[in-house]
């Protein structure tokens, strides 16, 4: 892969680089996201951003640094700490033809706007036929020692609500292309930015303002023949690392990066299973009723005749994300866990 890891501080609040690409032209995941926002703000004056500390301060993770100077306080709107109102206000503005992009300082705090998300945003078009082109975005995920309230993977809660397209990209290019697609989509969407990836992963990213990645489309990040690892978000990078060690032992893993977790790209998942006949579903949301639970069910229901082994899930237990490093490491699937699970599957 043409990606590399860069140093980052605790909780993803790394110092540099941010705000612009490196001299080699590569963009981190965070910069790719900022570019997507900037380009869409330039393209369409109906697009505006709202959230806490996104204007003058530039956002908790500095994704929107410098935006207020270019676009002004009306289009980069600092709001009171009122998440239900941030979501509801986005809905009302969208009903009147604007295209709001709401930032949450952490995806954890989306739950403070839960009712407006799951009752209003998700259901309104089905009930009343009014499109709501709203994007909710924020940093999700663990592995950065940020503990219970700054590490959540909330995607299953909101996928269950339905009506909101949910993206969890793993790479800068996917992040940029998907976010631009989300802003242009007439449906509500939730864009979850894994904070572990923000400043760790960079790659060459298109500068074409029309570069888009389709929503609802998975991508095979590594071709393989023995076992399919169906995954998304930061776990894609863990899977890639594990697959290197597995290859040395002669086990060939194929890695399917879902990119969008709702709606699921069942076709790409099933095509991979037909090829490998073995499935490891690796995910960072909770094991019980997490995104992987649905993936496993789809495989069991629709690819039964292709399977040589039971579907295996690898995911955190249903407990709050713990702080202490040994606890968080035990909570999150580790590279050794992935290798062991793939080895077991390959043994069938």
């Amino acid at each position, binding site marked *: 892969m043409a990606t590399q890891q860069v140093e980052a501080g605790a909780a993803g609040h790394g110092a540099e680089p941010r705000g612009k690409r490196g001299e080699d032209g590569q963009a981190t995941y965070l910069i790719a996201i900022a570019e997507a926002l900037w380009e869409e703000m330039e393209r369409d004056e109906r697009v505006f951003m709202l959230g806490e500390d996104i204007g003058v301060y530039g956002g908790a993770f500095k994704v929107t640094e410098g935006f207020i100077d270019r676009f002004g306080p009306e289009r980069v709107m600092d709001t009171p700490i009122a998440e*239900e109102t941030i979501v509801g206000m986005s809905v*009302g503005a969208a009903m*009147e033809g*604007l295209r709001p992009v709401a930032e949450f300082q952490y995806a954890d705090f989306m739950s403070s706007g839960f009712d*407006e998300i799951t009752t209003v945003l998700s259901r309104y*078009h*089905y009930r009343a036929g009014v499109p709501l082109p709203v994007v909710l975005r924020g940093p999700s995920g663990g592995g950065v020692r940020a503990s219970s309230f700054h590490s959540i993977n909330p995607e299953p809660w909101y996928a269950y609500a339905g009506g909101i397209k949910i993206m969890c990209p793993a790479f800068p290019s996917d992040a940029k292309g998907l976010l631009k697609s989300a802003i242009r989509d007439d*449906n509500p969407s939730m864009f979850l930015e894994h904070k572990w990836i923000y400043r760790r992963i960079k790659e060459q990213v298109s500068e074409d303002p029309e570069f888009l990645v389709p929503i609802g489309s998975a991508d095979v990040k590594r071709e393989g023949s023995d076992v399919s690892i169906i995954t998304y978000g930061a776990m894609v990078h863990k899977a890639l690392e594990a697959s290197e060690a597995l290859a040395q032992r002669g086990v060939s893993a194929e890695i399917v990066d879902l990119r969008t977790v709702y709606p699921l790209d069942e076709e790409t998942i099933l095509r991979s299973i037909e090829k490998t006949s073995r499935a490891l579903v690796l995910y960072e949301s909770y094991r019980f009723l997490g995104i992987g639970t649905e993936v496993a069910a789809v495989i069991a229901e629709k690819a039964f005749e292709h399977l040589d082994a039971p579907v295996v899930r690898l995911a955190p237990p249903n407990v709050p994300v713990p702080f202490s490093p040994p606890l968080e490491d035990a909570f999150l699937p580790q590279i050794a866990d992935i290798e062991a699970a793939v080895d077991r599957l390959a043994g069938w």
Partner: protein
Amino acid sequence: MRRTVATKVEPDAATAGRPLPDDRLKEILYFLKLARYFDERMEALYRQGRLPGAIYSGRGQEGTHVGVAYALEPEDSLFPTHRDLTAQLTKGLELKRVMAQFWGRIDGYLRGRDGNSHIGDWYGHRTYAVMSHLPIAYPVACGAALAYQRAGTGHVALAICGDGATSNGRWHEALNTSSVFRLPVVWVVNNNQFAYSTPNAKEFAVPTIAERGAAYGIPGVRVDGTDVLEVYRVAREAVERARRGDGPTLIEAVSLRWRGHAGHDPAKYVPRELLEHYMLSKDPVKNFEQYLKDQGVVTEEDVTDIQARVEREFEEGHEYALASPFPEPGDVTKGWWVEDGYWVGEPGRAGGTEAS
């Protein structure tokens, strides 16, 4: 597609000291009588088992519902509740399509996707489809108002909730946010004194809801919600204030819910003397009718004609609803996404999206 704001006569264009011209006053009486007759007949049909789903009576509060909606122009938006269906009728929704919704038919405004007074017609009449989690529409009204402010349209959003909903965090979030950004919005609290069975004293510890506006830098006005003209006057002032760019107003309109929270609730928790007082002395429909008679605006014959019109429209609406087809079961998942195209072609659905 945007319609131009219709010219309405201003309140100061009065005749003989009355706040509105006679034809407008008669129109208000029509809406009040429509509200009352609809409410009574629908309750009867519900009790006879001839109406599926639920009903939420607004009886006794028609002065508030008609008064606030009458203060709006067609392009102003209304964020109503389940109890103030009359406000939406006053805003212009067609009775027959409202009734088709009650019977779960395809010609209802929400095509059978929702029932009873959980209704709205955004593109046709700028009314938001009601949701139960009150005051869930308050933050949404902030967003519509924000769009009006940005575009400089001069339009106003008006949102209604009940006394009980003022205990919910969103009520406070929305009032605060609207004041911080000086949004063109009017907040109406229909204080009918009971949130389901819970009286005001168990919902808040201040004497009035209106005074809570001070906490957010918003003027609060308390008005007799059974007096339709007084409600109209206060609401009109608040709407014009918002239109001028002077920010939100909080209106507490006090009345009493004559019936239970919903059709199944006998409301035995309402003290009998209080109910009798309101029914005898504070009937919004009777009092306004008497006022118009006293003023010589209507005759007994006019009132009879209005009543006959209301009853005829109800019967026509009922027939229309029962004749309207049910939605196709196979369409149950359609319209989850915009690209399904399910709502395309619905009357008045043009506009508002990228696709259009």
